[in-house]
């Protein structure tokens, strides 16, 4: 078993890099972080649309959010994989496909988190800001959203952990993330499936549990 670790350890951690694209655990973390970073502006925009006074904005966005949340993430990934090239006009790789699918899916979930966060800020804050002469946009940008973000940190940490786990679906479209590589290693080694898949599970456990604990240590109460 330890020979397997030595032979395939580096492949598991960083994939084919530098002889090929980045893969493995490094790719999982990169994809998870990038997807969450992209999902934030998507979530904020959708949340603002959800609380907007204009029905023509509120209703389609609410409908879209309900559709995305009622569909399995795997389905969203397939839609992105098959139809993104047709929409954008160029062939998108698996990483880009997963990134966009995760950003949209998590953006729809974050919209609820952001909405709750914004609506949780006492009305007095907005009143004070408006009476000081700030307009709608400035109030949001300078007063409401920064405070809301601080309240949302625990949910954001949870969403990051969820996103890290969701990157594993890249396996199905052939993205060389850590679960795909573990399966490839297993198909070469054959005789140690329990050890290999247990190691894969342990990797995710350490990663996700570690992120939550680290956030707790930083003071974020999840």
């Amino acid at each position, binding site marked *: 078993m330890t020979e397997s670790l030595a032979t395939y350890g580096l492949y598991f951690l960083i994939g084919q890099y530098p002889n090929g694209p980045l893969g493995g655990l490094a790719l999982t973390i990169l994809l998870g972080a990038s997807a969450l970073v992209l999902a934030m502006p998507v979530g904020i925009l959708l949340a603002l649309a959800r609380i907007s006074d204009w029905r023509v904005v509120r209703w389609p966005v609410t409908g879209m959010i309900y559709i995305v949340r009622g569909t399995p993430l795997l389905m969203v990934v397939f839609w992105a994989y098959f139809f993104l090239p047709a929409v954008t006009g160029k062939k998108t790789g698996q990483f880009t496909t997963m990134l966009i699918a995760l950003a949209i899916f998590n953006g729809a979930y974050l919209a609820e988190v952001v909405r709750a966060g914004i609506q949780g800020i006492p009305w007095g804050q907005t009143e004070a800001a408006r009476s000081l002469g700030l307009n709608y946009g400035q109030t949001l940008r300078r007063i409401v959203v920064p405070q809301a973000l601080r309240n949302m940190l625990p949910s954001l940490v949870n969403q990051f952990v969820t996103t890290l786990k969701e990157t594993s679906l890249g*396996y*199905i479209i*052939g993205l060389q993330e850590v679960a795909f590589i573990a*399966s*490839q290693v297993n*198909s070469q080694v*054959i005789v140690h*499936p329990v050890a290999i898949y247990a190691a894969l599970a342990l990797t995710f456990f350490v990663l996700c549990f570690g992120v939550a604990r680290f956030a707790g240590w930083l003071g974020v109460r999840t």
Partner: protein
Amino acid sequence: MRLMAMACCALGVAAAWTARADQLVDIRHKGELTCGVLATDEPMSFVDPQTRTIVGYEVDLCRAVARKIGVTATVKQIAVGARIPELQQGHVDLLAATLTHTRQREAVIDFSLTTFVTGQKVMVRRDSGITNLPQLAGKKVVTVKGGTQEANLRKVVPSVDVVTFETAPQALVALQQHKAAAFINDEVSLFDAYAKMGPAQKDFVILAQNVSTEPIAMGLRKNEPAMKVAVDAALRELEASAEAQKWFFKWFGPGTRLQYPTRNFKIESDRVPD
């Protein structure tokens, strides 16, 4: 004057007609047969990096056909999409370019006798006792998602239980873990996987029967009956003298990476199913 012109025209047409209808005569006159090959499809036709010449199974066959006709062969590399146009325009006399004999293509070109048969095969666990395709009825067979394997197998064995996985290696793992009785895939990938198994090979058998067949043949220009007769005759002689078999084993047999244990076709027919 006009009569002379017409006679010349008639003679010219007759000459052109006979010239066109006897490519074989032209070739014999030139002393050279031009073979169109891909040169990028090992081991059918490819460039040997040591000698930097084009070699391969189809190259050997084409050279032998030329020899039987009584001329020398010139090997010309052509692109996949350019195969039929180059033949039709006369830049090559014959196609030896991994060309599948299909009904649709019969409308534009002729085919020689089938020179190679490839397709999809099934690898079974030895302890399942399955020795032919019909015995797969009701049994579990694994393969990869997204290909023609499942559909092709169902055509042959309608009651088979096919389970597909995201990648072929994943399906192979399922077979090796005894989750299924058999694994179907493209012939060349199957032999490659079998070769990589090492000592575990004794537990598995690749059934010789093809689930789907892809007949490869030489491409010939249409309306050249004499040429087709000559090429087919040459191929039959090569088959009878066992030279064709020798080349098969040279490029696909036990000493090569592909290691086909047997040759399950003969060069004898140009009939293909619909």
